[in-house]
């Protein structure tokens, strides 16, 4: 007789994704391992993070516990992170959840989750009955105070990120992400000077400029997109100047920013973006889809040349895109190009920021509330950040870190938040620069 779970596969997949690529191992199943909660305790203590599930014909209630079951039968576990969730059968896509700090007690007849003094969830083994506290009821948007369950299962959760706050972070991240999205959607520039902020992505070949655009678009579309061709080759994959507008959702409105993707810069003579083209790009002389030529800058008689660009055509923010792992090997030629661009940008009143790509530990970049870069991250990458700061004379508050969508097919709210936060800071930097423009530059 083999044991199999009653958890629908789709929900298992959904949970695996929510908890960050974990796997679930069924340890206990009430219909097979009877005898009250003693067997449940025996099978499930000392197993690390667990999910306890209660099934009935209408819904599935689950409790994720980051810390192990209590160490002793009848004892109470240390309060720790837990997430309660509810699936309604037939509506598999929808799941409601509530994050709480709870302690668990298991006795022969009862299984009780405490949040401070409140019994959040109490389960009676004899009656197969679950009772929910008002807090849980509201959090899960459930209408049933108590229900009889037909089956109870416990799974071990393997591969959880090694921090108790991960799960609270994820649930908060989902909320914070929707705030960020709303903020970016409705962004208005200073004094409504322009309707769309133009952000130019500049950097060495293969540093992730086009990938950053794809990542931003993916966040707004909700799935991985590949509008900008990316890949690696001896020379830059991107050869055209592209001005990308991004829609909010599939058939939604255009967002209030444009990402301008350029050819990669190259150390080699006669390869990569022609440095003399950069001032033209900054001033807005070059139109979308201009085909760059490495050894020859654009001339004023080229059809793609815009002779008298207005404020809305020019670049409002330049982002140097650098691979975190290549900061140490940045050539002196590249640095001198950057310095040249910096002079140029400053004279035109353009904001300058740095975008570091390819992080190893992106989930630790931001503080718990996502409002700022975390101290830990800054100290871990202190050397890199300082080096960039010193090499390029960009203030530390304008150095952002992101992880592009490079291989994962699924979207991750923590990655999204980094990407969106960087974007928002770029818009703010551009705004400051616009506000600072001398009057004669404004048309």
């Amino acid at each position, binding site marked *: *007789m*083999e*044991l*199999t*779970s*009653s*958890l*629908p*596969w*789709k929900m*298992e*997949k959904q949970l695996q994704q929510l908890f960050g*690529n974990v796997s679930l*191992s*069924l*340890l206990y199943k009430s219909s*097979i*391992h009877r005898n009250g909660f003693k*067997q449940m305790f*025996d*099978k499930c203590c*000392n*197993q*690390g993070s667990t999910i306890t599930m209660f099934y009935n014909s209408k819904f599935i209630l689950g409790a994720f516990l980051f810390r192990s079951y209590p160490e002793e039968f009848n004892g109470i576990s240390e309060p720790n992170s837990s997430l309660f969730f509810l699936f309604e059968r037939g509506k598999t896509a929808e799941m409601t959840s509530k994050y709480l700090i709870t302690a668990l007690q298991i006795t022969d007849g009862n299984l009780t989750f405490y949040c401070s003094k409140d019994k959040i969830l109490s389960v009676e083994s004899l009656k197969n009955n679950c009772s929910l506290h008002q807090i849980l009821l509201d959090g899960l948007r459930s209408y049933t105070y108590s229900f009889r369950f037909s089956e109870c299962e416990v799974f*071990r959760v*393997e591969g959880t990120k090694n921090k108790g706050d991960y799960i609270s972070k994820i649930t908060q991240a989902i909320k914070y992400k929707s705030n960020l999205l709303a903020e970016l959607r409705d962004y208005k520039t200073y004094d409504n000077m322009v309707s769309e902020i133009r952000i130019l992505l500049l950097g060495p070949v293969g540093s992730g400029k086009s*990938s950053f655009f794809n990542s931003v678009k993916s966040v707004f579309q909700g*799935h*991985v*997109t*590949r*509008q900008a*061709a*990316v*890949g*690696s*080759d001896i020379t830059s*994959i991107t*050869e055209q100047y592209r001005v990308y507008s991004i*829609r909010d959702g*599939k*058939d939604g409105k255009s967002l209030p920013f444009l990402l301008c993707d350029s050819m990669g810069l190259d150390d080699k003579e006669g390869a990569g973006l022609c440095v003399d083209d950069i001032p033209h790009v900054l001033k807005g002389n070059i139109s*979308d*889809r201009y085909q760059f030529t490495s050894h020859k800058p654009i001339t004023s008689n080229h059809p793609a040349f815009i002779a008298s660009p207005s404020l809305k055509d020019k670049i409002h923010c330049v982002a140097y895109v650098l691979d975190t792992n290549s900061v140490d090997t940045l050539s002196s030629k590249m640095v001198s190009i950057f310095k040249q661009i910096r002079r140029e940008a400053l004279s035109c009143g353009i904001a300058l920021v740095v975008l570091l790509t390819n992080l190893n530990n992106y989930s630790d970049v931001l503080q718990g509330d996502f409002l700022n870069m975390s101290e830990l991250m800054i100290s871990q990458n202190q050397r890199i950040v300082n080096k960039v700061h010193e090499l390029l004379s960009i203030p530390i508050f304008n150095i952002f870190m992101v992880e592009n*969508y*490079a*291989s*994962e*097919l699924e979207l991750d709210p923590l990655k999204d938040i980094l990407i969106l936060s960087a974007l928002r800071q770029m818009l703010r930097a551009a705004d400051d620069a616009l506000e600072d423009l001398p009057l004669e530059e404004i048309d």
Partner: protein
Amino acid sequence: MAVTTRLTWIQEKKLQTEFEGKKLILLYKATVHQFSYENMLKKCQDQGPTVTVIYSGNHILGAYLQELYREKRKTSNFLFIFQGTKMPKYKIAVHDINKLFYWSSEMNINLDKKVMTVDSQIAKVLGLSQNSISFQECEVFRCEDILNERTLQGVTEYREDLLSFVKTYKFIKPYSDLVNQIRILLVGPIGAGKSSFVNSVKSVFRGHVTHQVLVGSNTHGTSEMYRTYSIKDGKNGNTLPFILCDSVGLGEEEEGLCIDDVVPILKGHVPDRYQLHSKQPITPSHANYIHNPLLKDRIHCVAFVLDATSVEYLCHEVVTKIKRIRREVIKCGVVYVALLTNVDRLDLITKDDFMDIYRCMPVKLKLEAVHKKLGFALRDILAVSNYTSEWELDVVKDYLILSVLKQMLWAANDFLEDLPL
């Protein structure tokens, strides 16, 4: 200490396949749950078939117990040992976990003393010099069918969702009025599985495996004509929102598809059933040359089809051709993906892996190899397994094929969005 197995991915996979496709679920780990018979029993009794593994220095060995003694059926219980890449098995009489850990003389695992004793017969087959060995770790797993009813039902639901996604997909406005069907061009080395992919997609929507497109593996590539296949939902159903365009395979030197034909194909100048010549590209003077192709005639997404089992051995010439074509594709603004076929033939890959294909070690390594050799971004490489010798459809294969199609529809949508207004 985390409750995770010491078995490597490969070792676990090996055990899975040896025991009729079972998934292993770790129940007990001695270093976490203590070297105690009582603790082991609490965790492991009434759990159905089990695998017990002990780790002793360089030896990893264990027992598979079906534990059907209550049903009084004849059971097949085994002892196994890892020997390099091999894993010999020996039939044993012990048939329940109680005996294995408590009093069997044939083979006994004493947790308190951390010693396993076996009778001299077994010691001989295992190649042990003495009858007892001490061990440092002991793990007990529950066995579960990998493709059990629950997972199959789950995949079936997913398949249905994907089917309706593909059938009802609408492209971005205003192009949805101009383009009802997007054209997906398949390019790749000879024998990479381009035509097989067409057949596979047709099969999914037909409801049984079809072999309309002739597939062969001769060195010249079977298809010499440029063919476009509009695919129907069912035998007489609606047309689906995509057309698969099959080209001649890329070969060495002047063999196969002529690179200069790529741009006319991308731009929609080349008609269906056009006879491709490897040395002579199409010219506007050709009778069937399409002079003013509309947006709907153009290629909207390119799939570079590569065979997972041989992609590392692609010769320099073909690699160069692929990279050149990719340049042209990018220049034309067409979106592309790489399609890795035959992932089912990679070592140790079994059908259950299809549901989580991008997390499988051999597939991950292969994706890295393709990325290194050809420069495709990792997330642009999609894995698939074609219908080649089967008669009937398989829900798990369908799932992969449809997932790939979904990515292609999205990619084509990205192309349309990128068009200059």
